[in-house]
């Protein structure tokens, strides 16, 4: 989604759509899951400085973010989570195993 979307390694969408929820990995790749509470977000843009490839402000105050950044971006995304003054960003790092129906 963000400017370098095409360059960002494998297509997170495709992988996520075909994998069951207990599988976060495909051929050694994994993605974080990010959601921003945009009621809470005040467009302070701290996340955009911390992880400019994954968070951008558009217009005056529309935050656009990558909901599935590659795991290799973990440090930057964690910085964004910490930097947000209203704690609006939530991230899950790797899909952990879940119970499966018998």
């Amino acid at each position, binding site marked *: 989604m963000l400017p370098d979307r095409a360059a960002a390694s494998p297509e997170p*969408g495709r992988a996520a759509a*075909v994998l*069951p929820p207990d599988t976060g990995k495909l051929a050694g790749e994994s993605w974080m*899951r990010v959601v921003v509470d945009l009621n809470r977000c005040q467009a302070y843009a701290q996340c955009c400085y911390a992880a400019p490839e994954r968070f951008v402000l558009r217009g005056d105050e*529309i935050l*656009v973010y990558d909901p599935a950044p590659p795991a290799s971006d973990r440090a930057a995304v964690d910085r964004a989570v910490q930097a947000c003054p209203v704690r609006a960003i*939530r991230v*899950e790092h790797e899909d952990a195993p879940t119970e499966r129906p018998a």
Partner: protein
Amino acid sequence: MRDGTIVIAGASLAGLRGAEALRANGFTGRLVVVGDEPHPPYDRPPLSKHVLTGEIPPGATTLPGVGALRAEWRLGTPALGLDRDGRALHLADGGRVAFDRLLIATGARARPWPMPGEARLAGVHTLRSRDDATALAAGLAARPGRVLILGAGFIGCEAASSIRALGLPVTVVDPAPAPLAGALGSVIGGFVAGRMEAAGVDVRLGARVTHLEGDRAVRRARLEGGGTIEADLVVVALGAVRNTGWLAGAGLDADEGGLSCDGACRALDAAGRPVPGIFAAGDVARFPHPLYGNRPVALEHWGNAVAQAAHAARAMLDGPDSVEPYGELPAFWSSQFGLNIKSLGLTEGADAVAIVQGSPRTGRFLAVYGRAGRTVAAVSVNAGRWLPAYEGPIRDGALFPPITGGADQPRPEPMPPGLPAHEAA
């Protein structure tokens, strides 16, 4: 009660956040999440925004929290019925899941085009699910000659914005005098209409489409009173209906407007009595709002799904008497045509609106809505940081308009908000 079996019907935002809250509050029993969609819970707001523009692939919207949740997932498996006395769900795969407590979080679906034969024409879309967005994006990739959007509510307007951003010709038709009139009134809606037109959208207000025509694929729409619009892709954005059909026969107070519940999120039976052990949250729930005279409301807000699901989880674990009546201040956002629109409170029934900060001329302003002299809602347009100051006045029902007398601001002049007299379509 922190053990036994809890079943959640509906595997989306409210279902996931409810399940997480149950675990976070110490529920150690068996947790089963039943969802009719094949996908694990994902986020819908991006679908009409950055998914349609192609910036976010549909599959990238899976919500955080899915991976860590300790639950049994029954995805791609609709619940077909509720056996209230036998305390079990009937599933489409023939299975039966017994529960001690149930959370109903089956949300809403797009209201279909009323003529089924026309709705089946190729090129006619609705937008509610990830699969809808995928299909619509594929239709847009074929570069239709014109896209026609039926309905200028939030989803119709956001779709119009995204599709214009792709450079495609777009017409929006709505019988109301302004876009977003049902939620924001025609004063603020009129401002948005100006932005839509500036972006090149053909905005037809006060107009109604009566028929969609074409053989196999849609070709044109017929307007009331004569006239047609040629279009080879149509987005039907006529609002939502609640997914309560599967509860038929269970004796609950449920219809297309929602499943009634009380302040502890307990589902109500047809006589209005709370049903032990059965709870509801999210878009499907119709609940008495304590800030608005306990008027029953059913919201379609992301924030409500999150907060109400957490509330229901506490009531499920600690008992309905241990929680305050659910009274989260309604809040939502929308982004379209470069505008970030945020809202607090409920505008429904407001009899006045006043621009209290900024001005539509500068493209940044905050409008407050009043009802019988009290402040009931506030809406910011590209001015989100001004909004939190109005939370207190809305909660308190402060005199309208509140917070006057800013040194550099003229006295606000209240005017009629241009909201529909009855509930918005």
